[in-house]
């Protein structure tokens, strides 16, 4: 295993320490592994809280700041945080207007956040609403599975709903916007290589030099199927087609994110976006806002994912609103 780390068990603590040193605009609680805004939100505004396993950087800690999250709770690599952590963050960020939990749909995440909101409501009287992001079209038979995974739409949702919370909307309307955004987002991912979980010390799965995995998530889990390596134009089809088959993206402005899994360089991500853009345009889909880069990653995995979000004028306006976070920044 080749990684810039000290020890496998220390990765999270050491990385958070570096994150704190690099970003004075956030405050890191190293004991509870929570990233907060250095300057908390004004009283009376709904707070946004997210979190999950680590290894997806910049998600979630990188999205704490004006216009996006109020706090992010970090679990161990690929392991959802515990209820105690979530409860602590929930109590801290509440300004009295309640807290929205943004939870990616994984059994562990859902259970831990559920326990936390039960605790927070019981102990501190904090009003909590939860949106569970579930946008991965690679998971097809939702009835016979834990349901669709929460992947790329999480990033877009945190941005859009973050802007709405900043406007001062109340918890119910922030939560219903969040659900609307989740319903309008779809993602599909692929991997050229497995990632290596530090504590495991070797790649999660073996992938021959001439093969790729299609339909992966963000935890190094193997995908839905494996096939021969293909040119970028074909890979783009494998991402675009299942998304467009799942939801009609024509007739609305679309936010498109071509996301890197952590080990693929920008030159390749732009190349992939070029192929995707051609297919979308041929399918009559209008990309109003493109985003290309590493936004929700899977450690050092090489590969990419595509997320499309069917937007409207309100969502675009919220998308364009100022955001000042380490991971996403514009307008201020």
């Amino acid at each position, binding site marked *: 295993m080749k990684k810039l780390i000290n020890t496998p068990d220390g990765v999270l603590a050491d990385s958070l320490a570096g994150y704190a040193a690099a970003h004075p605009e956030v405050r890191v609680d190293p004991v509870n592994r929570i990233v907060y805004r250095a300057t908390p939100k004004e009283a009376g505004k709904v707070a946004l809280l997210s979190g999950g396993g680590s290894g997806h950087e910049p998600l979630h800690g990188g999205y704490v700041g004006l216009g996006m999250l109020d706090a992010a709770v970090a679990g*161990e690599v690929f392991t959802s945080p515990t*209820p105690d952590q979530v409860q602590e963050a929930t109590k801290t960020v509440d300004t009295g207007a309640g807290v929205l939990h943004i939870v990616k749909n994984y059994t562990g995440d859902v259970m831990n956040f559920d326990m936390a909101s039960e605790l927070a409501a019981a102990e501190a009287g904090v009003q909590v609403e939860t949106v569970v992001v579930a946008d991965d079209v690679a998971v097809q038979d939702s009835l016979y599975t834990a349901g669709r995974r929460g992947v790329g739409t999480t990033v877009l949702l945190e941005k859009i709903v973050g802007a709405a919370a900043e406007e001062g909307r109340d918890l119910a309307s922030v939560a219903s916007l969040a659900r609307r955004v989740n319903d309008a987002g779809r993602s599909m991912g692929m991997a050229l290589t497995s990632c290596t979980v530090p504590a495991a010390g070797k790649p999660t799965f073996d992938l021959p030099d001439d093969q790729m995995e299609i339909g992966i998530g963000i935890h190094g889990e193997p995908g839905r199927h494996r096939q021969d390596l293909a040119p970028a134009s074909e890979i783009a089809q494998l991402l675009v087609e299942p998304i467009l088959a799942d939801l009609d993206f024509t007739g609305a402005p679309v936010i498109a994110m071509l996301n890197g899994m952590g080990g693929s360089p920008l030159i390749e991500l732009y190349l992939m976006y070029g192929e995707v853009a051609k297919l979308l345009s041929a399918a009559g889909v209008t990309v109003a806002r493109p985003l290309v880069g590493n936004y929700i990653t899977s450690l050092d995995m090489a590969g990419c994912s595509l997320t499309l979000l069917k937007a409207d004028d309100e969502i675009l306006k919220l998308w364009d609103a100022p955001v000042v976070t380490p991971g996403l920044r514009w307008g201020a």
Partner: protein
Amino acid sequence: MNVAEVSLDELVAWLRGFQKLVADNRVYLTELDSAVGDADHGANMDRGMAAVVTKLDEAPATALDDLFKRTGMTLVSTVGGASGPLYGTFFLRLGTSLGASSAASATELGAALRAGLEGVVQRGKAEAGDKTMYDALAPALDAFDGVAGSGGSAAEAAHAAFEAAAAGRDATAPLVARKGRASYLGERSAGHLDPGATSTALLFQALDEALGG
């Protein structure tokens, strides 16, 4: 028979034994989780049980409910993932069921284990054949109850439970997962043991060993 034959010390030994087995199998459990999940089950369980043992070293358990509630809460607050709430809830329910006593009969222990299983099902909604820890836990409890209900000793019941848990674990191999991360793999999840069912079999191996096996 309602003889209080299982002592607090034996149950402490159970948990300490489980911790050792988990530590010894940390790499193996993670390998199983690599095949169908995200390669962390060994690290998760090891982190949690190490924390439990540290807590027990700091302050010895005073009663059964103290033992199991602290165990459950420690797991909930140190593990995360799916296994944290599931194993945590399991032990919390054991504590509630056994109360502030310092020993339990075989049937009391059986009833507590069943309360634990119910907690797991409430949290995770797993059913038989979903390829989860349920598939080792449920047959283990049936076997335990069968022996304990027909007058067997707790040690005999634990031994039967371990054998059933191991069989349940092995039976997860051909299954297509319908819960947890492995379900994302669809048909590709078949042919691999479930990591959680495997750690649950270790739990009953530890109980068997602690009660005299």
